[in-house]
């Protein structure tokens, strides 16, 4: 009998490699940039030439500590760099400068918010659970080069070699591919907003290795794990995990055993396959790098990192729902883009209807930006102008149709909404006397619909209101017009 998927539960831990955004490399002065000609960004140090020595990039250390603080890690007073020894053509020195037993950050965690989950899983109970995935550690190391294999030869591009790389290691806390997706999405957003990394998976700035095992539901002991490598998107991680979990359940269900190994994900065919077995595992012979002094984090590094703390996206979203009464979804969309969030906060400051501002921002403003190929940072409509527009609507000064016209002009010219309203003569007529005159005119001109309304046909009122609007050239306050018509008819 084939095993029931639900008889097993997966256990997942992630190792996330993330390039730290710095101007220069981790241990030399070469620039860090993606897409330059091969080996254009190299020097004797990052090529591992005889006699060179590493000098640590302070900025990379500060940014790693900053990341640790944002994720509630503990920062030890003393940390050090170690050498991880193994031979690989991508490694200029055949050892990688990394951190072994004294990493920059320990512990901490990432809370999974509902909207970090994939769209199709946002309504599941686990998306609502706000689970916290614990971190084991974050350490800093140098990235390796990139090999390209041609027909009979291989080329190595050392541009990437020596780029500062954070390794973020989770506990085995992740229970589904969707949680892994949510973890990476939430983490990535945080890294980008904090300015720590550009975290572009396609550029290899964010890479993720997954350790995954399955065990019969209810069993405490972990099953045998496999490590999966080579995913180049967050959805790829989800798919790879789903495939691998299913594979492991099938093997176990058929009475087989899982072999501990490293497996490679092939995104094209959607399968994992054996890359190397555990027997080939390296003994890395870690030892403290004698070329580098221990890092004393209290030597200004920690203080500097503290000055760069930001509000986490999840906290920001919570604040928006709490303080501005916007929906959870809107709050998470706003908080997911720092520029947009700051725009929203400026627009909402002192506003009576932040929710209305959020609506206008996420609908009309966003679509205008999209269709004009602009981003919020160069939005021609100032946040204060958006606030004024929304309060004109709320105050009944213009109707929503007029508002769209006004907004269009605001977006094109950057003019203030009140000026546009005035110059176009759009000010909504809320003078009851004037509207009443027009209402009488409309009723007299259309006795049929007037009678229909009195006979109980509610839609006739809309027709008559439309006539008043026409007579007023769109300036009448429709709500007021409708009220007045109704009053006039009923009082007949």
């Amino acid at each position: 009998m084939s095993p029931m998927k639900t008889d097993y539960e997966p256990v997942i831990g992630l190792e996330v490699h993330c390039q730290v955004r710095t101007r220069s490399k981790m241990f030399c002065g070469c620039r860090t940039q993606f897409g330059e000609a091969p080996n254009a960004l190299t020097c004797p140090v990052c090529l591992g030439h005889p006699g060179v020595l590493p000098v640590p990039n302070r900025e990379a250390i500060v940014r790693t500590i900053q990341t640790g603080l944002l994720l509630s890690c503990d920062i030890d007073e003393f940390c050090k760099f170690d050498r991880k020894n193994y031979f690989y053509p991508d490694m200029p020195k055949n050892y990688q400068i990394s951190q072994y037993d004294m990493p920059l950050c320990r512990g901490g965690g990432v809370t999974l918010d509902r909207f970090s989950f994939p769209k199709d899983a946002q309504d599941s109970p686990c998306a609502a659970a706000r689970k916290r995935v614990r971190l084991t550690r974050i350490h800093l190391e140098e990235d390796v080069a990139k090999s390209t294999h041609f027909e009979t030869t291989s080329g190595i591009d050392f541009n990437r070699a020596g780029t500062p790389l954070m390794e973020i290691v989770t506990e085995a806390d992740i229970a589904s591919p969707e949680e892994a997706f949510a973890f990476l999405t939430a983490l990535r957003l945080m890294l980008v907003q904090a300015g720590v990394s550009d975290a572009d998976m396609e550029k290899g700035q964010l890479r993720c290795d997954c350790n995954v095992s399955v065990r019969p539901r209810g069993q405490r002991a972990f099953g045998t794990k496999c490590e999966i490598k080579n995913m180049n998107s967050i959805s790829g991680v989800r798919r790879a995990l789903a495939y691998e979990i299913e594979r492991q359940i099938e093997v176990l269900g058929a009475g087989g055993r899982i072999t501990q190994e490293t497996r490679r994900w092939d995104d094209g065919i959607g399968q994992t396959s054996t890359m190397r077995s555990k027997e080939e595992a390296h003994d890395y012979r870690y030892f403290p790098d004698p070329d580098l002094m221990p890092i004393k984090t209290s030597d200004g590094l920690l203080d500097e990192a503290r000055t760069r703390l930001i509000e986490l996206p999840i906290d920001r979203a919570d604040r928006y729902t709490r303080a501005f009464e916007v929906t959870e979804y809107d709050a998470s969309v706003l908080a997911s883009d720092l520029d947009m969030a700051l725009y929203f906060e400026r627009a909402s400051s002192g506003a009576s209807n932040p929710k209305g501002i959020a609506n206008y921002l996420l609908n009309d403003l966003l679509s205008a930006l999209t269709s004009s190929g602009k981003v919020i940072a160069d939005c021609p409509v100032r946040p204060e102008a958006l606030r004024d527009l929304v309060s004109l609507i709320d105050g009944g000064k213009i109707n929503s149709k007029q508002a769209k016209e006004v907004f269009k002009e605001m977006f094109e010219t950057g003019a203030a909404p009140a000026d546009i309203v005035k110059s176009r003569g759009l000010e909504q007529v809320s003078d009851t006397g004037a509207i009443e005159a027009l209402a009488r005119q409309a009723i007299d001109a259309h006795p049929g619909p007037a009678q229909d309304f009195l006979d109980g046909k509610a839609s006739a009122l809309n027709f008559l209101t439309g006539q008043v609007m026409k007579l007023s050239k769109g300036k009448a306050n429709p709500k007021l017009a409708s009220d007045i018509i109704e009053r006039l008819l009923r009082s007949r």
Partner: protein
Amino acid sequence: MNLALEPISTLRARLRGREICPRDILAAIRERVEELNLALNAYVHHDWDAAMAEADRADLSLPLGGIPVAIKDVISVRGQPCTCGSRILQGHVALYDATVIGNLRRSGAIPVGRLNMDEFAMGSSNENSFYGPCRNPWDTSRAPGGSSGGSAAAVAAGLAVAALGSDTGGSIRQPAAFCGCVGLKPTYGRVSRYGLVAFASSLDQIGPLTRTVEDAAIVLGAISGHDPADCTSVDTGVPDFAASLGGGVRGLRFGVPKEYFIPGMDPAVERAVRAAIDHLAHEGAEIVEISLPHTEHAIASYYIIAPAEASSNLARFDGVRYGHRAKDATDVIDCYAKTRQQGFGKEVKRRILLGTYVLSSGYYDAYYLRAQKVRTLMRRDFERAFETCDAILTPTAPSPAFKLGEKLDDPISMYLGDVFTIAVNMAGICGISLPCGFTGGAGARLPIGLQIIGKPFDEATILRVAHHYEQTTPWHRERPPL
């Protein structure tokens, strides 16, 4: 007057007086190299035209203006071969200047030639060189010592005015003792290691080999100083070493460690060193016996730490980016294996194996970590001694220069020859070796070295003591019979 044999101060005076020009010094050296290098094998490479061109541009107002300094083949000089006496670096031309080379040039000196050495500075006889052994100018059937054998032989034989060497466990001081010249290992962190091809990073230090103490002080002053490119270089002031030479030894207290006079050491060495100690006492110094109790563990712990670091430092020599590459490899792993099999000599392989073993999972604590603890104890030995002493006097090596081939098949006996120098590297302090006599009897007269060990960053004191000893004894005036 042979310019190749003159001290720096004399050359400097004559250069500034326009009696000679830098080319004249280079020409004198070249003449001697052409005459003697075939027998000595001290230089493995030279580019006289480049050196002459640089000499013509030399600024004679600088402290070393126009003075050539010969360079051990382990220190990177832009555009020159840097092969570390190894096959694996054949064909490699350095892309950059080591910091010490930049410092020398800023002092007006001209880096000249590449000097023979034990492969990757691993050895005490210069026999572990891809270029064949360098020979001792006092007796060409004998080793010049190592690993800076080429530097010591060139200086002693007048094939160089001064030379740079490197010292990881005695590689400057022991060859200086064997060849009868002055060799100084500075305090760890005094001189930048940037551009020194690493053997054991936590022990390596570049230093001068010269014929006189004053020359050592001048060259040390030129190469010293904090270097932002070397995190282990220390940001401390560089005193004017040459200016502090005249102080004498009266009122100074010297420790003589009982552990440094061991059974089995050459009687001539013991005699000469004891006589040197008596001489300094006679000159007004106070001599006290001291104990450095952890000396007996020096060699054992050194041969864990140095190979461990070396196994990692030498991993980069894989044929992928530079140097020798095996031609018949089937894949990348095979290429590594064959390249390193062909490229490294026996002693280097022995130490890589040793180092790989002691760092292996499960052995790290028992070997590497334990050796580091012993190292701390050795450092404390010296700290305690320096609470009461201004410097420590010992022999540099337990024997004078041995015969080439004598210890080649007995690595342990070769390792034991470094027993008096290794502790200085392990403790990170400074030491100088200078001639204190000669062996007598039948056969060649062989120089004997006195080692003066100093407090961290107190090179000034050991230079001052060495200078006083030198100026009140005849040994430095002796020249090898070439």
